[in-house]
């Protein structure tokens, strides 16, 4: 049997088995869940070759599955993050109700994402896309809170995206008579201009919803923060990247073929830039860590969209590098929030403080991920940011580079808020009982965080498959021109050599750490955070010195005019307007027979009066 079928059979069978075993035994259920994630992952990376395809037909439509080297990059995140977050989920979700349902949805999500990457035809692509949407929707409403507000919003936007995509698919079929993605790509330059514009726009609406592109992003903050954190790390880390996957195919394989594509790209790049700024500013304003990370995900996806929109080889390298990096660090951060929520019962910065000595490993993982998120060398986030800036400067996007720079400088604010809010600051006796999260939750976080470090020191490890994927899309090889194992180049040949930087940073850091500590550390003693100088007064035990309310108030005051512009009220207003229309329509049906008779008479009278106009009698 073909290995590709086997992988999907294991996923499907595992999803059913996990659900059913959930009714019998918890241990069997957990075991089946992990096996269903790990076995296909191992099979995929050992047995599946790039370019291998299977053909079969279903209901008279021929379908084709096979992985490309471009899809392979995304498969790393889906399966890697999927497995690690799965291991995390087993411990993190322990004791929750209805876990069989949760696990089987989780498996279905992973399966659907792999299916999207495998699909070479639009039908199976759409089917897997819908499975992904449904399973993630069920996860968003899993907690049962605010289903009306959050779940419906996600559902409506997903539905709009799906219909747009379906329309594009049907249009494609009527134009080309084939459902293959390849035949769409080859036939595309021959379409007339309106179709050349319509198909990418419809597809991009579908992909833009999943990748939370402005103005289709409003579902993201609520959905990311309402799903269980173990799932959100996959939701934000991998699932949102499916939108990017589709977007890249549309932008590179379709839009680039026509001369007007240049303007199309500019619009997308700017939408990405606005997404990045808006997401960042709203992330700074949040007091809840889940919301903060959700908005931060929107912002990070904005950077990726900018890279995709600009579309030079360097920008594409940057975008795909950030895709993987975002999966690593945002996956870790959502897991860290989940761990903190499990141990303390809250994820609000204004409630919990000073966890650094209680949860040191979670802190370490969060610290590394935050450094990567902020894009500070030597961790991996820097590579993507650097390439993005260089590509923008090198391709004459002068204002866009300023916009992106503003956004990523403002990102330092919420990065600090995350670390300070949870881990630093006053240690309150209220949280003295908190212990480090279980090892099975901490280890996946640490593994992912170490990944950001490895790819920061040796970006070539990751740029190699990315380069292969870009060649699949028709780019020339960039190895040696823009990157080597640990050296990066820009379009003008200026370089950043990561090895000397790393050595210099470590040498200086160790030297001064020893310098500060030597002959000093043993003589010093640890004192609590109450034992501080506060203008010559000694604070009492009960005095609250925690600083967490209105954390960035002055900054938010300064950017107030920018944050006044929101799209959400517009959608809400539109929704209200539609409700009013429906209400009016409902009033027509009064339920009174006399009224209906009146309607019939009025209708007949109208027909009589206008019969000459209507029927020419």
């Amino acid at each position, binding site marked *: 049997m073909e290995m590709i079928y086997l992988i999907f059979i294991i996923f499907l069978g595992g999803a059913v088995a996990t659900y059913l075993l959930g009714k019998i035994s918890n241990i069997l259920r957990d075991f089946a869940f992990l096996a269903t994630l790990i076995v296909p992952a191992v099979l995929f990376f050992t047995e599946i070759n790039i370019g291998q395809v299977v053909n079969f037909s279903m209901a008279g439509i021929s379908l084709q599955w096979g992985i490309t080297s471009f899809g392979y990059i995304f498969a790393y995140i889906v399966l890697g993050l999927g497995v690690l977050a799965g291991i995390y989920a087993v411990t993190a979700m322990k004791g929750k109700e209805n876990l069989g349902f949760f696990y089987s949805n989780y498996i279905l999500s992973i399966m659907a994402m792999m299916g999207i990457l495998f699909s070479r035809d639009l039908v199976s692509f759409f089917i897997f896309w819908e499975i992904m949407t449904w399973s993630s929707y069920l996860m968003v409403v899993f907690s049962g809170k605010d289903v009306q507000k959050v779940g419906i919003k996600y559902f409506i936007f997903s539905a709009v995206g799906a219909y747009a995509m379906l329309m594009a698919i049907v249009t494609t079929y009527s134009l080309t008579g084939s459902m293959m993605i390849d035949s769409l790509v080859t036939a595309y330059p021959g379409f007339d201009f309106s179709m050349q514009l319509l198909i990418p726009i419809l597809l991009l609406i579908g992909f833009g919803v999943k990748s939370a592109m402005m103005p289709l992003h409003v579902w993201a903050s609520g959905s990311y923060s309402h799903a269980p954190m173990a799932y959100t790390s996959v939701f934000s880390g991998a699932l949102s990247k499916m939108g990017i996957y589709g977007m890249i195919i549309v932008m590179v394989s379709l839009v680039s073929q026509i001369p007007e594509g240049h303007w199309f790209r500019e619009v997308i790049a700017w939408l990405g830039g606005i997404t990045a700024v808006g997401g960042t500013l709203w992330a700074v304003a949040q007091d809840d860590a889940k919301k903060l990370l959700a908005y931060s995900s929107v912002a990070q996806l904005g950077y990726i969209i900018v890279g995709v929109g600009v579309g030079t080889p360097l920008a594409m390298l940057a975008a795909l590098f950030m895709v993987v990096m975002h999966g690593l660090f945002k996956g870790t951060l959502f897991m860290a929030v989940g761990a903190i929520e499990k141990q303390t019962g809250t994820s609000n910065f204004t409630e919990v403080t*000073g966890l*650094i*000595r209680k949860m040191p490993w979670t802190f370490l993982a969060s*610290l590394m991920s935050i450094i990567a998120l*902020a894009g*500070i*060398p030597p961790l991996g986030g820097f590579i993507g*940011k*650097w390439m993005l800036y260089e590509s923008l*400067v090198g391709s*004459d996007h*002068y204002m866009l*580079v*300023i916009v992106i*720079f503003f956004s990523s*400088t*403002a990102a*330092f*604010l919420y990065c*600090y808020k995350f670390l*300070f809010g949870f*881990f*630093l*600051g*006053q*240690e309150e006796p209220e949280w003295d009982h908190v212990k480090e999260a279980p090892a099975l939750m901490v280890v996946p976080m640490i593994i992912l965080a170490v990944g950001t470090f490895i790819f920061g020191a040796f970006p070539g490890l990751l740029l190699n498959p990315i380069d292969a994927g870009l060649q699949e899309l028709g780019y020339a090889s960039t190895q040696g021109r823009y990157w080597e194992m640990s050296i990066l180049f*820009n379009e*003008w040949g*200026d*370089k*950043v*050599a990561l090895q*000397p*930087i790393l050595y*210099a*940073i470590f040498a*200086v*850091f160790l030297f*001064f750490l020893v*310098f*500060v500590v030597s002959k*000093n550390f043993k*003589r*010093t*003693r*640890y*004192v*609590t*955070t109450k*034992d*501080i*100088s*506060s203008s010559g007064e000694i604070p009492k035990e009960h005095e609250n*010195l*925690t*600083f967490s309310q209105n954390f*960035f108030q*002055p*900054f938010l005051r*300064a950017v107030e005019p920018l944050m006044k512009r929101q799209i959400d009220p517009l959608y809400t207003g539109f929704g209200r307007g539609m409700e009013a229309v429906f209400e009016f329509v409902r009033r027509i049906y009064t339920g009174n027979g006399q009224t209906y008779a009146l309607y019939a008479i009025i209708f007949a009278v109208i027909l009589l009066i206008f019969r000459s106009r209507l029927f020419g009698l």
Partner: protein
Amino acid sequence: MEMLTHILGAIATVILAFVVGMTYGGLVRKITARVQNRLGPPWYQNFIDAYKLYGKTTAIHHGWMQIMGPAFLMVSSVVTLMFIPVLNNGGWFPNLNFEGDLIFLLYLMVFGPLGMALGAGQTGNPNSAIGVTRGLSQMVGFEIPWVMALVALMIQHDTTSITGLMEAQQQSGTWMMFSSPFAFIAAVLAMLGMFRYSPFDIVGAPTELASGPVSENGGKYLFTMMSSGSIFAFVKLTLYVDLFMGGADNLVILLLKTFAIYMIPVLYGLVSPRYRTEQSIRFFWGWPLFFGVLALIYAAIF
């Protein structure tokens, strides 16, 4: 052998930066005093202070992050120094000049303050955290005109490396403060925030925040922070001289140019009271931003 000369050169650079930075700090104290009609401390007062701090033993600490804070700060200063050409043509201090470019440098420069911010956070002193939030907010303000100026230079000369920009100035024979005047104005206005003298001294904010992030630090910690601040001042001044004033051929010229640049924020600060944080941010999004946009337009057209 080559390795050894490299390391010796690096150490020499750090010592030079430390001495120059400390001396400038002392001179600024003297100048401030004279403007305020006081006698003021001698120019070498900073060295005395540093020696005293170095000699002190530290009695308490609040945890590992606080101890690592000064080390993080030092990483940022020293490693940035390694990437900035001190003199034209390398001279005695080649270090790592050719291994990184300006955008990398921009990110490396925030490494230290953020590490320091974490250290300050662990002390639990609310003043420290307030200082940090103010500092980060202000950074968002002044980075925008500063980056605009740098991007203008980059696109004008098709390079992002500092050495490349210095070579461009030597070839054309004019300093960039004349060939790209708007970029220079934007960069100088951004520098006012970068050096944190009045009216932008909202981070340390004496008499208001009790010196902000550095409160709770004494002895060797404070010594390390003070040295790091001095080295970082030298780094920033040298960067401005390299980018806008054609670099320097020898140390005397370097000192003259850096001191002249340094006097801009110092003298501006002497006659200004302190801004509130949002006023400070908005300041940078006013005229500095305007000149930044002008610089970009100028660079894109010419």
